[in-house]
């Protein structure tokens, strides 16, 4: 049986300060292989296409079923999840690079903690901590559940931020994911208690106003989260909140 092979070109960098180099790898084709499984094979036999031994590639991944959000990288120029990037659907050579908008740690691993920091700054949680039993929560009607479920699918992969022209070091824009989470938690009957805080937070520098509505986020989101709808709804809510605040003095 003639062996079919797949070629990868991977951008590597030993550390934040180290020079970037491209390395090629040639792997035996297997049915259903994806970019993460290819990386695992390289780790098992870290030799480049021209036969030079190298180090295994550093990257983030966990669930391998597009649900943990850790394996986002640029594949053939586009930010996407590596575990759901099937080799059979990709043009070869498959070029893999780290996300470009986050501080690089090593190889394909970047530091995406800015998203978690942003989620904290908008209080993207339902406050139920306490020292006694609060009883059952308020009822959420099925209609509300349906509206909110898509928003709750966010896997914090940061693809929407990577592809956003406004998410960069000049604007320090918060990004679409956090805005969508504000909508989710503001819709929650208990989460609502922080609604005004969240809206005011999003009017800060780097807030929702920086969105240029290029709509890349919604194109790129692997979970098809209705991000542009969320930006529109939250945009209106933030504005109304600000106007109310000004009028109240």
């Amino acid at each position: 049986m003639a062996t079919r092979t797949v070629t990868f070109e991977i951008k590597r960098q030993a550390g934040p300060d180290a020079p970037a180099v491209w390395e090629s790898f040639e792997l035996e084709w297997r049915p259903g292989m994806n970019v993460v499984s290819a990386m695992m094979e390289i780790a098992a036999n870290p030799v480049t296409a021209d036969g030079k031994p190298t180090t295994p590639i550093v990257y983030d991944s966990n669930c391998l079923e597009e649900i943990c959000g850790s394996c986002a990288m640029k594949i053939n120029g586009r930010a996407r999840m590596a575990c759901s990037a099937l080799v059979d659907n990709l043009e070869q050579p498959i070029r893999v690079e780290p996300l470009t908008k986050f501080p690089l740690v090593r190889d394909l691993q970047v530091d995406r903690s800015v998203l978690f920091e942003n989620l904290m700054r908008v209080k993207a949680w339902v406050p139920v901590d306490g020292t006694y039993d609060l009883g059952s929560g308020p009822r959420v009607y099925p209609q509300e559940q349906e509206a909110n479920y898509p928003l709750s699918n966010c896997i914090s992969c940061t693809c929407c931020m990577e592809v956003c022209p406004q998410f960069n070091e000049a604007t320090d824009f918060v990004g679409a994911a956090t805005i969508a989470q504000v909508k989710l938690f503001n819709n929650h009957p208990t989460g609502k208690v922080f609604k005004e805080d969240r809206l005011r937070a999003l009017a800060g520098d780097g807030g929702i106003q920086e969105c240029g509505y290029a709509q890349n986020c919604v194109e790129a989101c692997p979970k098809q989260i209705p991000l542009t709808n969320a930006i529109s709804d939250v945009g209106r809510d933030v504005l109304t909140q600000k106007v109310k605040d000004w009028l109240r003095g």
Partner: protein
Amino acid sequence: MATVQSSAVPTVRRGVEPLRAGQGTSFIWHKLHSLLGIVPIGAFLLEHLLSNFEALKGPVAYGEQVRFLNSLPLVRVLEWVFIFLPILYHGIYGVYIWLRGKSNIVYYPWAGNWMYLSQRYTGIVAFAYIIQHVLRQRFMGIMLPEHPGAAFWKVQHELANPWMVAVYVIAMICVCWHFAYGVWLFAAKWGITPGEVARRRFAYVCAVLGVLLAAMGIASIWAFTGPKYQNAPADVRLSTLVAPAHSGAAFHSIGSQLMI
């Protein structure tokens, strides 16, 4: 610290900072920029294109329109407060917004991303055009507020240069594109069209609006360059400058002037 290595190497970066929750004033400046684009700038654009349309009725009607606008109370204050200053702010802040964005159309050639880019290019063309247009037509040459009858002639003179015609046509398309997409963006970002379907429907509305305005604008340019009103007199007498009863006589005298 990091030394400069080959250009392919990112130097140490701080990364994008987290949200400055509730801090700063950029929200109001952005919203002001957005709002001014609709009122007064968009509203003025509509007025201007409608007024220009009068040119199709000839030098007298056009002069009348210019005279009427200049007869508005506090017109000099109005033009600064509702036209020049808002456009200056919208233009300068718009350039600032552009400079801080980082287009990535090469990697993500999607429709919305193209429109994002087009809004920036049409904006800069419109701004550059408007600056020269205001300087040359409002602040240089014969002063139209004092001589509204010269309006047609002045524009025709400007458009005698075919390069200027090209500039006007291109700028007209850019202005109308920027405005039409701007209205769409405004509705999307201010939460007026929060749904996919609403935004799609409104996109058709805005597209029709943009095409219509551009067509009207180009038709007005045609009024100045086409064969109908060639060699308009340098100053037509306007009927409203004389008593209404004599308007026929005034028109007659214009007719004779036109024949010169």
